[in-house]
C-alpha cells in the first residue's frame, strides 16, 4: 500500500518507516474528516481514532495481506491500516454510490474484502463472534490465515465477548483479539464499568487465552506483541488477547474536542497528548537515525494529495438512486 518497494536498507528501518507512514496517513485522513465534517455533508456519526493510530498500524503491519480483520464503530484506522480503499471509505462517509457499502452503511459500516477487512458494525461487541467465526471457518477449511478482532475495552463488558473467547480458546482458533483500552466508553470512565482491582487482559486469561498488555501508543511495541501473537495463532497454538493502552483525543463521536464538558480532565488529556504515538515515534526515529526527512516530507505530500483526491471524488460522486432502495435486500442464489 505505502510504496513499500522503495524502503530504506534494513528491515528494522523498513518496518519503522512503514509504521510511521501508516500512522501519519491515518492521522491525516482523520483530520481531513474532522475538517470537512463542518460542511455537514458527511451525514453520519463518525468516531475518529486520532491518538490511537499506533494500535492499528502496529497490528496490521504484523499481518499478511490475506489475513482478515473486523472492527466496530471506531474502525477508520483499522480499515486503512489493513489496506482498505481510501476513496471508497470517504465516499461511504458522504453516503455516495461509490462508497464501500454503496452508501448503505456510512462511517459505522466499512468493508473492503479485497483488503481482508471483512466488516465493521456499530453494535458493540457484535463483530467479535463473527470474527471468531471467520477464524473457525479458516480452520475448518485448512487455510492458514489469522483473523483480528478489533474491539474497545467496553466490548469486553458484553457477554458475547466471553462467549467468543471461550469458543476460540476451546477450539484453539487462529484469532487475535486486539483490545484498545482508551479508558472510556463514550463518556463513561472505567471505574463505573469495570472493577479497579483487575486488568482487562485478565478477563481473557481467565478463559485460558494467552493475554498481554502493552503500550498502545508505541507502534513498535504493538507490532512486536502482535508479531508474536500472529505466529502463535497461525501455528495452531490458539488465540491471543492483546490489551493496548491508549487514548482518544477527540470527542467520542464527531469531529471536535470535548474535554470541556467535564467527563475527563484537561490534565489527563494533555498527559496523553504528550504521548502522541506519531510525534514520539518520529522523534525516536530521528534519534536513531532512521528518519529520512526528505522522504517523509514527500510522503506527507503524497498522502495529502491522495486524501484531497478522495474527498474531491467523494463530493462529486452521485448519490445512490432512490430506485435502488430495495436492491440487495436478498442475495440472488
Amino acid at each position, binding site marked *: 500500500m505505502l510504496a513499500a518497494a522503495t524502503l530504506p536498507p534494513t528491515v528494522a528501518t523498513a518496518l519503522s518507516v512503514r509504521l510511521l507512514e501508516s500512522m501519519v496517513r491515518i492521522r491525516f485522513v482523520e483530520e481531513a474528516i474532522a475538517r470537512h465534517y463542518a460542511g455537514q455533508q458527511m451525514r*453520519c456519526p463518525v468516531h475518529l481514532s486520532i491518538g490511537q493510530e499506533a494500535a492499528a498500524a502496529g497490528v496490521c503491519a504484523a499481518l499478511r495481506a490475506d489475513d482478515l480483520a473486523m472492527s466496530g464503530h471506531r474502525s477508520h484506522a483499522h480499515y486503512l491500516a489493513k489496506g482498505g480503499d481510501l476513496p471508497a471509505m470517504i465516499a461511504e462517509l458522504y453516503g455516495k454510490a461509490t462508497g464501500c457499502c454503496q452508501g448503505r452503511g456510512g462511517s459505522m459500516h466499512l468493508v473492503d474484502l479485497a483488503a481482508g477487512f471483512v466488516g465493521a458494525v456499530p453494535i458493540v461487541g457484535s463483530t467479535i463472534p463473527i470474527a471468531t467465526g471467520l477464524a473457525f471457518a479458516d480452520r475448518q477449511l485448512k487455510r492458514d490465515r489469522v483473523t483480528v478482532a478489533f474491539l474497545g475495552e467496553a466490548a469486553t463488558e458484553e457477554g458475547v465477548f466471553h462467549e467468543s473467547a471461550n469458543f476460540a480458546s476451546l477450539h484453539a482458533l487462529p484469532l487475535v483479539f486486539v483490545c484498545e483500552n482508551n479508558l472510556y466508553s463514550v463518556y*463513561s470512565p472505567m471505574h*463505573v464499568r469495570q472493577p479497579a482491582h483487575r486488568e482487562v487482559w485478565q478477563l481473557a486469561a481467565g478463559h485460558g487465552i494467552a493475554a498481554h498488555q502493552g503500550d498502545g501508543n508505541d507502534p513498535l511495541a504493538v507490532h512486536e506483541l502482535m508479531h508474536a501473537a500472529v505466529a502463535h495463532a497461525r501455528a495452531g497454538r490458539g488465540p491471543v488477547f492483546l490489551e493496548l493502552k491508549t487514548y482518544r483525543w477527540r470527542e467520542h463521536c*464527531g469531529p471536535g474536542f470535548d474535554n470541556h464538558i467535564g467527563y475527563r480532565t484537561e490534565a489527563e488529556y494533555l498527559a496523553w497528548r504528550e504521548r502522541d504515538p506519531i510525534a514520539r515515534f518520529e522523534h525516536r526515529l530521528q534519534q536513531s537515525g532512521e528518519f529520512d526527512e526528505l522522504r517523509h516530507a514527500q510522503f506527507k505530500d503524497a498522502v495529502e494529495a491522495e486524501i484531497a483526491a478522495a474527498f474531491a471524488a467523494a463530493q462529486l460522486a452521485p448519490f445512490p438512486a432512490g430506485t435502488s432502495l430495495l436492491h440487495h435486500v436478498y442475495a440472488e442464489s
Partner: protein
Amino acid sequence: MKSSARELTYAEAIRDAFAVALERDPRVLLLGLGVPDPKGFFGTTLGLQKQFGADRVMDMPCAENGMTGVMLGAALNGLRPVINHQRLDFALLAMDPMCTQAAKWHYMFGGAMKMPVVFRMIIGRGWGQGPQHSQCLHSWFAHIPGLKVVMPTTPHDAKGLLLAAIEDDNPVVFIEHRWLHHLKGEVPAGHYTVPIGPARRARAGRDVTIVAFSYMVLEALEAAEKLAEDGIDAEVIDVRSLRPLDQSLLLASLRKTGRLVVADTGHSTAGMAAEILAIAGESAFGSLRAAPRRVCFPDCPTPTSPSLSAEYYPRAGHIVAAVRATLQRPPNDDDLLVPAGAELDKPNPAFTGPF
C-alpha cells in the same frame, strides 16, 4: 401549590418526569449507559445524578442483557428501576430478560411477585443512523402478554406516561422517537400521570380515520392539514399505548368515518399497523366502506445515505396519498413532492449531527 403548565420540549418533559419520580419515591432508580453523562442522554437526564446521587442515577457496564436482568432482581427486591437504552437496537441483546423473564414473572409464579420495571428505549432516525441505530421494533414488544408498551407523542403524554410507567407494578416498555425530543408543548409541573391504555383523539374529523404512532402522529396531523385543503376532513388517533390497545376509540372513529389509514413508524409485516387493520376487519367490518391502508417502512433495512433514507421514510404525503386511495380519489403526484432545500435526514433545520 397547584401544578401549572409550562412549555417544555419532549426531552425536558422526560427529565421532568424522572425528577418527579426520583423525588417522590426513594425506590426509583435510573440506570443506563451514559445516564449521568454530561450531555444528559439527549438532555433527558441532565443534572439528575447531581440532584439525586450516584446511587440512584447510575451509569452501567456495556452489558444490556445482564444489566436488564440485574434490574429485574432489583425490581423484585424493593426498587423501581428504569433501564435506559440510547437506541432500541441495543435492547435486542436483552430480549430474554424482557420478554421471557419480566413479562412472565408475575404470571408464571402464580402472582407471587411483582416486577415494577421500565425498559426505556429510543428509536433513532436520520443523520446516518442507518441499519443498526434506527430499528423500530415496538410491535415485537406489543406481541408479548405481560408487557405494557407505550409510545407517547406529545411532551405532556411523555411525562405523564413515564410517571405512569414507573408507578406501574408491571414491566413497561417505554419507547421514544428521537425526532420527538425537540418537540415543544404544554407540560404541567409536578406530579400527574397519563393512564396506560387509552388512545387520544389528536384531531377530530368525519371522512377518514388516520391511526398513528409516536412520531408518525406529527406526519398524520400534517397530512390532515393538507387534506383539509382538499376538503377532506381527517380524524387522527394517537395510539399512545400499544399494549393494552384502546380498541374503543378506534372502533368509534371507524363507525363514523368508515375509512382507515394507519401510519406506523416501523415495518409492515406482522407489525402494529397490521394489528390495527386486523381489529378493523374483525370488529368494524360492517362500518368499513373502503379497503384500509397501511403506511409503513419499505420492506428493507434502513439505509444510511441521505438519498436513500429520504426515499425510505414515509411522510405526510404518503399518508395523504393513502387517504386519497381510500376515498377513491385520483392520485396526486404533488403529494410526494419534496420542497426544495428540505433535508429529510434531519429532525429540524437546526440539527447539525453528529448524533
